[in-house]
């Protein structure tokens, strides 16, 4: 039995090494990376365009909402706007829109809100439930007047991920106009903390945590994501090979 076990382990190791070698092959790599397209197609076919992510009762909220990724952007620009309590912060909305906007936090707070208690699912596997309050992205995009050729909405963030690589994310119009897609300025009835993305973060509830861009500075409507960053649609997509469609 010991021989059999050793043979099994050796076989397993050899197979794993084989798989790793396979994954370096261009064709295999492309096949592995394209499963995302199947999942996006399958999920979008199975769900109604406005199908809602599950919402929870107040007693189901996580006692502590874990903050992940950048805990504090700590750049000179961010520190400057933080010191004034974000009074000098402005959200720019531009790109393929007919009326570019520049919105202050107090302006955003006067717009109609949406409140939702939703589950934040990290790509790592953990989940936290929190109550978000914010302005539906749809309201902002309608005010800016999205042009016909806009296909994606890109979120530019204040946090630098090292070496002058700012965090950014992008979603398509299907998610941009979803009723639960909001620009949140409050978590659990308090203004957003720095760790959780102050002053404003994106909530796109049918996707994983890394899509929920924090420290929003600018929203840009584009016809293609190929020209942004390294062209994969987000910081983690560019540098770590994460899927752009993070519905699974």
């Amino acid at each position, binding site marked *: 039995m010991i021989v059999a076990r050793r043979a099994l382990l050796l076989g397993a190791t050899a197979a794993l090494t084989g798989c790793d070698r396979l*994954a370096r092959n261009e064709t295999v790599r492309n096949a*592995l990376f394209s*499963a995302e397209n199947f999942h996006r197609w399958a999920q979008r076919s199975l769900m109604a365009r406005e199908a809602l992510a599950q919402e929870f009762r107040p007693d189901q909220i996580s006692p502590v909402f874990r903050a992940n990724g950048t805990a504090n952007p700590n750049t000179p620009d961010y520190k400057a706007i933080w010191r004034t309590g974000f009074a000098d912060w402005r959200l720019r909305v531009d790109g393929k829109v007919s009326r570019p906007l520049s919105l202050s936090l107090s302006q955003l707070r006067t717009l109609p809100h949406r409140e939702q208690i939703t589950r934040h699912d990290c790509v790592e596997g953990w989940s936290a439930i929190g109550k978000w309050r914010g302005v539906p992205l749809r309201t902002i995009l309608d005010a800016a007047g999205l042009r016909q050729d806009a296909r994606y909405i890109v979120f530019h963030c204040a946090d630098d991920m090292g070496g002058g690589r700012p965090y950014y994310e992008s979603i398509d119009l299907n998610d941009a106009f979803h009723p639960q897609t909001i620009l949140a300025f409050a978590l659990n009835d308090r203004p957003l903390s720095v760790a959780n993305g102050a002053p404003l973060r994106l909530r796109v509830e049918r996707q994983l945590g890394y899509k929920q861009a924090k420290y929003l500075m600018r929203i840009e409507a584009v016809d293609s994501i190929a020209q942004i960053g390294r062209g994969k649609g987000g910081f983690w997509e560019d540098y770590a090979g994460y899927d752009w469609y993070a519905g*699974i």
Partner: protein
Amino acid sequence: MTAMKLMPDSADPIVKRHRLSTRMWHWLNALLLYILFTSGLGIFNAHPRLYWGAYGANFDPAWLELDRFGSWWTLPATYNLALSRHWHLTAAPIFAFALLAYMLWSVVNRHVGRDLAFRRDDLAPRHIWQDIKDHARLRFPTGAAALRYNVLQKASYIGVIFIALPLIILTGLTMSPGMNAAWPWLAELFGGRQSARSIHFITAFALVAFFLVHILMVLLAGPVNEVRSMITGRYKVPEERP
């Protein structure tokens, strides 16, 4: 498991045992479950804690907390969450649709009805007890009896095909925030996303346990004959015990 005699007059007749669909699905599964298990452990390593309920993160009580699985276990060998996910999410839909096709085809071609379904006398307590004793003594059936699945075999094959494999697919889907919107009943069914993640993990190791017993049985029952029957379909019927 249609026992069609090819050489009826020899002492140890060779029969056609496993159907082509069973053989193809078996080896496809061997490959896919191997990829799914090792890449799954790679994903688990990103957060090696398990919880019950809808939520669960570092500040919440975990019912299981492990060290990261070593590079012997994971795909890829060095920690790479993105690549583990690519392997896992590529293999998973192929595995799920192959299972669905196999289930349907096995009902249509009567594999389920003829070979896997329990017969009335299978379930008699005395018969089950006899089967357990035979297994414990490693007394494997011979002659015509070797061509039928015994009650413990039936129970484990039915348990794997119709319970464990669907369960691992459905709990996997429950972890998807997209599927959460498409099929909200999934999270209800399993008691929340983190419960589903726990059940997914437990089921994976239940399948590993099945795999180990399965390999052990093949080794004890005659590995050459058993493996050949799963590759070519041809099986040498063990000589009847006097």
